[in-house]
C-alpha cells in the first residue's frame, strides 16, 4: 500500500479529531463539580454494566450508551436521588442484568449464601480434623 503522505495525514488528523477509538470512560465534561456527588456517580457507574460491551462497567466503557447512562446518573444525583432510587430506575428499565453486583433476591440467595456456607464447612472440617487428631 502506497500512502500518499499529505492526503493521508490530513485525512488522518481530521479523522482522529472527531472519530474516537480508545477514549475511555468518563469525559472531563461529565465530571460534577461537587466532589462528593462525583464520587457517588463514579461508585454507582462502576456497578452498572455496559449493555453493549463485553463485561465492562459504564465507568470504563467508551460506548455512547455508557456515556448517556453516566450523564443520566449524574443528573439524578443532582436532583437529589439516592443510590437505591437510581439503581431502581435503571433496573426498572433494563432488568437486573444491568447490575454488576447481583441484587439480594430469592433467586440470588444461593449466590450470596453459598460462599459463607463453604467457609463454615471449611471451619467445620478443620475443627473435625483437629478434634480427631487429639483423640488418637
Amino acid at each position: 500500500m502506497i500512502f500518499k503522505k499529505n492526503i493521508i495525514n490530513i485525512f488522518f488528523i481530521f479523522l482522529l479529531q472527531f472519530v474516537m477509538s480508545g477514549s475511555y470512560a468518563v469525559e472531563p465534561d461529565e465530571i460534577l463539580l461537587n466532589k462528593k456527588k462525583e464520587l457517588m456517580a463514579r461508585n454507582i457507574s462502576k456497578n452498572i454494566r455496559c449493555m453493549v460491551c463485553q463485561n465492562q462497567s459504564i465507568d470504563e466503557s467508551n460506548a455512547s450508551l455508557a456515556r448517556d447512562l453516566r450523564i443520566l446518573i449524574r443528573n439524578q444525583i443532582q436532583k437529589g436521588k439516592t443510590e437505591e432510587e437510581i439503581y431502581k430506575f435503571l433496573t426498572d428499565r433494563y432488568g437486573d442484568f444491568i447490575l454488576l453486583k447481583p441484587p439480594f433476591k430469592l433467586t440470588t440467595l444461593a449466590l450470596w449464601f453459598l460462599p459463607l456456607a463453604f467457609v463454615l464447612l471449611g471451619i467445620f472440617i478443620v475443627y473435625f480434623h483437629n478434634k480427631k487428631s487429639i483423640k488418637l
Partner: protein
Amino acid sequence: MASTLGNILLWLSLLFSVLQFFNSYKKDNQNTLKINKIAVNGLLASILLAFFLLIYSHVISDFTILNVVQNSHTTKPILYKISGVWGNHEGSMLLWILVLAVFNYFLFKLYNNKNTIFISKTLEVQAFITIGFIVFTIFTSNPFEVIFPSPENGLGFNPVLQDPALAIHPPLLYIGYVGFSAAFSISVATLKLNIVNSLPWYNYMKPFVLAAWTFLSIGIALGSLWAYYELGWGGWWFWDPVENASFMPWLLGTALLHSLIIVEKRQSLQAWVLLLAILAFLLSVVGTFLVRSGILTSVHTFALDPSRGIYILAFTALLGFYSLILFGSNSKKYFNNNYFAFFSKEGAILINNIFMIIVCSTVFLGTIYPLLIEAITNNKISVGEPYYNSTVIPILIPAILVMGVGPILSWGKQNKSEITKKIFPSIFITTIFTIIFFSIYRLISPIGVVGIVLAFWIISNNLVIFYKKINRSFGMIISHLGVGLLILGITGSSVWQIEKIINMKTDAEININKYKIVFDSIEEVKGPNYLALRGNFLVYDKNKNIITILKPENRFYPITGNFTSEASIHTNMLRDLYIVLGDGNLQKGWTVRLYYNPLVVWIWIGALVIFLGGLISLKNNIKKLA
C-alpha cells in the same frame, strides 16, 4: 500441498494416539513398552510437524489455507505471524494437542522396571484425552482447511493482538492447564489399579503439577500485564469468565501442589489429592467449553459455534463421568485415619487447601450462576467485579495469614508457646516494615493497611525461614516471597491510585502527586502499519527536574480501519505514571487521562519471582525422580 500434508499429519497423530490407547497395559510388559515408545514418539513428531507446518504456512502467507486467510496478512510482522497461529481457535487447538503430546512424552519417560503397568495405564488415559482433542480438531476445527479460490491477501488482523506479551501468553497458559492432564491421567491410573503403598504415584504426579502450575502462573500474569498497559485505565483483572477459567485451575493447582507435600510426608490426604488432580483438569476442559461453545460472551471468546460446544460438552462429560464415578467407587482404599492438629505444618497446609477450594468454588459459582439463573428462570443477571471483591477478598485474607506461618511450623503438633516463639521474629519484622512504609506513604486506609501488613507478613516470614535455614525448599521460599511482593503491588495499585481526567490544550499543565505534567505538543507519527497522533507530555518532579517525556498515541491502522489508543507509562520501583490521550482537537484541547499507580511494578516482579521459585522446585523435583 500444505493442506494435504497437514491433514495427513493430523490423522497420523490420531493413529498413534489410538495405538497408545489400545495398547494393553495388562500383559507382556516389554512389548507394551516398545509399542508405547513408538506411539509416544510418533504422536509427538507428527503433531510437532503439523504445528510447524501451520507456522510455516502463516509465515510464507500461504493463502490457500483458510486459517492463514482468516488470521494473517502479508504486512504482519513475522513475530506476530507466528503468534497469530495460536491466537485463533483452530490454531490454538493444535497447540492444545501439542502440549498434550509433550506431557505424554514426559509421562512415558517415567517408565522404570517397577512401574510398567502403572505408567502404561497412565499413558492409556492420556491417549484417550489426546484422541478426544484430535478428533475435535480434525472434524470441527481443522486448521488445514483450504479456501478456493485463494485470495490475494489475508483478512487483516486485529492490531490489538500484535503485542509481545499477548504473543507468548497462550503457549504459557496452555502448558498450564493442559499440563494438568498428566496429573489427571496419573490419578485415574492410581484409582483404577490397586497400588496403594506399592508405588509412589504422588512422586510421579508432583513434577507435572509443578510444571503446569508454574507456567499457568506466569501465563495468567502476562495476560494481566498486557491488559494493564493496553486497555487504558490501569486495570489488570476483570473477573471476566475466561480469566476465571484460568484462575480456577490455578487455585486447584495450588491446593494440589500443597497437599502433595502432605501425601509425600505423611501418606495422608491421598484420596483428596486424587480428587483434586481430576478436578483441576476437568476445570481446564470446562473452561475450554465455556470459551469456545458460544454459551457466554466475553472479550476472550472465540467465534461462537454451538456444534463445537456440544462436542466439547460431550467429551467433558465422558472424562468427568468416568473419572468421578471411578473416584466414587475406588477411592476408599486410599483413605487412612491420619488426622491433623490445627497447630502443625500439615494443619496449615490443610487450611490453605480449604481456602483455595473455597475461593475456587466461589469463583466457579459466580461464573456459572448467570447461566443457572437463565436456565431456571429465563431471566438474566450479571455477576461482576463487585461480587468477587466482596466474597473472594475477605476469604483470601485469613488464607494469606496462614500462608505466612505454615512453612515455619514443623510437622506434627506443636503447642502454642512453641509456635509463638517461632513466629515472633516475623511479627516483629512485619511491624517494623509496616511502620516504615506508612511513615513514607502517609495515606492510611483500612484495606490498605491490611494489604500491606499481609504483604510484609509473607515477606518477613520467608526472610526468617531463609536466614534461619528452617526449610530446605528453596523454590518454595522464593515463590512465597513472590506472593508477598505480588500482594504489595496489588494493594498499592488498588488502594492508592490517583486518577485525573481533564481537558488540556497545548502548554497546559497539571499536577499529580508530586509531579508536574506539561502538555508540550502534539504531532503525527508513522508506524510500520499505522498512523498515529502522539501527544508529548513533559514530566517534572518536585525539584523541577525533568524525569521523562510521556508519549501516548492514538493509532489508526489503515488496513482494518481500527483505531487504538496506546498509553504511555513511566515505571519505577515506587509507582507508574500512566497517561492516555483521548478525543480532542487543537482549538478545544484534548481529553487527557492521567494515573498515578503506586507499586504496580511489584505485581509483575512478584509474578516473575513466583515463576522462578516454581522452576527451581521443578528442577529439584525432577532430580528426585531420576
